């Protein structure tokens, strides 16, 4: 079972208290963007073996969306952080680097 710490209400939420929201840190392209940009935003997703960033909603708890960094190969959770951010916080990235040297994900490393 997956347990994620909700950064809003501070509780350790079980997988069944959560709703998965897909990939984190998507940049939205709408009106005025090119076809390629829109296709990228709409359909193209990371599919890593290893470090991954996801959106989760604490749906049975406080109801808030948050972001999580975890490893798709081992299910290790590196950390969670509020959704009001455009990139993973530096301390979390350092923590991941210590455990998975040389990791990359999208534009992040």
């Amino acid at each position, binding site marked *: 079972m997956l347990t994620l710490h909700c950064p809003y209400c501070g509780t350790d939420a*079980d997988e069944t208290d959560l709703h998965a929201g897909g990939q984190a840190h998507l940049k939205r392209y709408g009106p005025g963007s090119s076809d390629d940009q829109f296709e990228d935003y709409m359909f193209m997703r990371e599919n890593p073996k290893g470090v991954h960033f996801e959106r989760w909603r604490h749906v*049975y*708890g406080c109801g*808030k969306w948050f972001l999580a960094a975890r490893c798709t190969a081992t299910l290790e959770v590196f950390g969670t952080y509020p959704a009001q951010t455009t990139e993973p916080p530096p301390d979390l990235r350092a923590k991941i680097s210590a455990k998975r040297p040389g990791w990359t994900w999208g534009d992040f490393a």
Partner: protein
Amino acid sequence: MSDPISALQGRSTAGEVTIREAGLCGMITLRGELSNAKLRAVCKKITGQAFPEKAKIALGEDRGIAWMSPDEVLVMLPYAEVTDALAQIDSALAGQHYLAENVSDARALIHVEGGFAREILAKLTPADLHPATFGTGDFRRSHLGQVAAAFWMVDADTFAVVCFRSVADYVHDLLVASAKAGPVGVF
């Protein structure tokens, strides 16, 4: 006027642990900026309780404030006083961004009373109910079986559960089944 009727009309299933619907309970969902001094003051005025910290509940005899989310609290008070309390909130927060709604008839309050009340809930929710983690004053939103529920401890042997009115029957039966199955003995 028709008389207000609680979801299970006080249904009580007695046993080593008794599952009892608590009858009519006034509940107000209040959303807004929780650090707002006016919001805190009106909650205090209505309930007589200090504003709860994150994931906590402030409880009095028949009133309380439960922390629901970073921008929501559940204000509990006697059923008959809700209309007046809403008017107090509306006048205290006039012109501000907030929402206050009477949800008394949309919810059910069920008490779990007896020696292994903690285990009855622990069998039904993924929340960690170990005594070292969850005690008096803690408040948790999670699910019981298939449905959303919030719960807290009234005292060492009593838990209170709030669920949606439409699933009150299910929650009551679920708690009764868990009680009938007996204690597990892990705590």
